[in-house]
């Protein structure tokens, strides 16, 4: 035996239970088997318990009439619609508040983050105070505060603050006039899309020309003119229909126009202010991580501080900022479910009511999980793609 083991190691001689390859496979198979067994056990046990207690299961309820009203909807909805549509209304409300939250928090956070690095002492300290205040108090408390401020501080609809008989601010929200529906509107939408596409093309062309000839092209202003101008041109061509739907007080509430409701305002405000404090710190850390030589070189070239920030520092800092920013975007999306505390009808609110009316908690919770998972994974995928695009290409 000793002779054998001293000799050249032979795989064939190793007993199967000592072979690391076979062992590895066996362990992995056992682990997979155990996990699978646990899953099977949980599922069958749950199904059995539900059946024993005669609790309904399956997704058939989705096509039943929901029967409850929702206070804020982007698509037409009435209690006669199905549970599926009620959940869709909630989903769209979640996407609305999360999408707007991401845009505003990014803008505000970047401004605050840059502001904290300002040589102006007052501005830097204000920005620092902002970050510390919003970052260190739980979001839920901010939501309660904003909601109470709106519902307690603003007057009732009959005493609404009236601006030129057009804007009405009360504890029912902000009512303002909108153009009455007109067949020209879809075409104006198309014009807007065309304007955006045109602006992108123009911007690329301007960059190429600058690279080739050195002449800068004001592509931002030209693009903005395209985006705003095209829909207006179409509107003029369509005879400039100017019927407006004006809000007016009828009975209990305002009728006509459109409204931004207090629940939505409070939630958006809370999400934006809270998350922008974190984004500000990410932006600041991204800029501070750059070599000091970059800003000095920019100054030596004669760029102003604003130009240096926009053309030299921020584009480089972006590479450091994007990965942690992804988590903040995911946080906004997930934190929007705190809506339930102040009564904004988001996805969780719709599904919770559905759970209560149908009693099918497991199915409904799965819907919420899948919905948030797909939104979050989409955001992650987009941010990863963007991160790759702006990554330093080393040649």
């Amino acid at each position, binding site marked *: 035996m000793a002779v054998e083991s001293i000799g050249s190691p032979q795989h064939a001689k190793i007993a199967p239970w000592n072979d690391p390859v076979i062992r590895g496979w066996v362990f992995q198979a056992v682990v997979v088997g155990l996990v699978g*067994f646990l899953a099977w*056990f949980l599922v*069958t*046990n749950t199904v*059995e*318990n*539900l059946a*024993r*207690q*005669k*609790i*309904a299961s399956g997704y058939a309820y989705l096509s039943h009439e929901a*029967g*409850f*009203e*929702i*206070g804020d909807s982007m698509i037409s909805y*009435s*209690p*006669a619609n199905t549970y599926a549509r009620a959940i869709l209304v909630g989903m769209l409300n979640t996407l609305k508040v999360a999408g707007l939250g991401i845009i505003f928090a990014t803008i505000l956070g970047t401004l605050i983050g840059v502001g904290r690095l300002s040589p102006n002492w007052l501005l830097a300290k204000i920005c620092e105070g902002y970050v510390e205040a919003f970052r260190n108090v739980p979001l839920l408390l901010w939501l309660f505060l904003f909601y*109470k401020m709106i*519902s*307690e501080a603003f007057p*009732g609809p009959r005493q609404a603050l009236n601006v030129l008989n057009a804007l009405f601010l009360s*504890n*029912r929200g902000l009512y303002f006039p909108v153009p009455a529906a007109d067949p020209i509107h879809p075409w104006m939408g198309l014009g807007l899309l065309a304007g955006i596409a045109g602006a992108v093309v123009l911007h690329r062309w301007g960059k190429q020309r600058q690279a080739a000839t050195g002449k800068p092209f004001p592509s931002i202003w030209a693009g903005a003119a395209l985006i705003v101008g095209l829909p207006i041109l179409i509107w003029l061509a369509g005879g400039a229909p100017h019927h407006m739907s004006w809000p007016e007080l*009828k*009975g*209990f*509430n305002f*009728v006509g126009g459109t409204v931004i409701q*207090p*629940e939505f305002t409070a939630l958006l405000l809370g999400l934006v202010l809270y998350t922008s404090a974190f984004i500000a710190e990410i932006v600041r850390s991204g800029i501070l991580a750059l070599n000091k030589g970059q800003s000095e070189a920019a100054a030596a070239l004669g760029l102003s501080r604003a130009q240096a920030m926009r053309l030299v520092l921020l584009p480089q800092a972006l590479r450091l900022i994007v990965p942690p920013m992804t988590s903040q975007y995911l946080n906004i999306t997930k934190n929007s479910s705190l809506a*339930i*505390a*102040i*009564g904004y*009808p988001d996805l969780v*609110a719709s599904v*919770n*009511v559905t*759970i*209560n*009316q*149908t*009693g*099918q*908690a497991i199915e409904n919770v799965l819907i919420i999980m899948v919905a948030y998972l797909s939104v979050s994974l989409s955001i992650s995928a987009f941010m990863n793609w963007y991160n790759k695009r702006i990554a330093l290409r080393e040649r």
Partner: protein
Amino acid sequence: MHKASVAAAVGAVALFASGSAWAGKDLDSIKARGNLICGVPTGIAGFASADSQGKWTGLDVDVCRAVSAAIFGDSEKVKYVPLTSQQRFTALQSGEVDILSNNTTATLQRDTALGLDFTAITYYDGQGFLVPKKLGVKSAKELNGATVCVAPGTTTELNLADYFRANKMTFKPVVIEKVEEIRAAFFSGRCDVYTTDSSGLYATRAANVPAPATADDYVVLPEIISKEPLAPAVRHGDQQFADIVRWTQYAMLEAEEYGISSKTVDDMLKSDNPTIKRILGVTPGMGKALGVEDKWVYNIVKQVGNYGESFERNVGMGSVLKIDRGLNKLWTQGGLQYAEPIR
């Protein structure tokens, strides 16, 4: 060897699985635990509210105290779990509480698809509307276009939508889970109307109006738009426990009907009336049939009181709510409270 251990593992798990499948004996686990876990509302004056010492009182609370008195002979062996309208059914289904005494309306959907059993009706209620007096509204038919505060996941929320649809009116709901937050939204003027069971409206009006406003600044509209029979609920599966909960309510009603109160119960033990002797266990047999002590009704009435006492103390003329007994009078006095006989 390997095969044997896998077989043993499967066997053990199968045993565990079937063990949990048998766990329908709610009553056994309550007795083994030594207390009753009771799901109550998070705070409705007169029905369930905790005082500064954490002591719970109210009509819903008395139901649990009476069940505890029937099972343990002691009305204080109850642990209270406050639950919102959204949490309550899941809490009962999952076994977090043994019994829901939560101002819950008995409906077909809840009795069947949710896997619950409703026992005897403890309070005949109906949905109403509370409005500020200064709005000058006289009828629910005038509420077209109103903003309405309502709790989610309730029959109230559904009745509200039905009522407005049936009367070709529109409304804007403001839906918040915590009842305290809904009331705050209503009193701050975010909503024109607060709707819930009328008992809850009276409770809110009596106990929750923020100063300097008073109860007189708010009115409950005359329309009652729904039937809301409030009953305790237990899980499907343990009929004996459901029986005890049901007969506890009947016992409190029977006691009132035969004039047995917490003050007279000791004298009543000497009564010659065969019905009273049977109810109080002087003639044995009733308690044994139900699976509790023969003195069960004596314990309930002595410690909690009969239905009339509980009603007057918590929500009736002896309380701040001053709710008229109305439908909840005994059948002998023109009400709907009619107990099946204890015999």
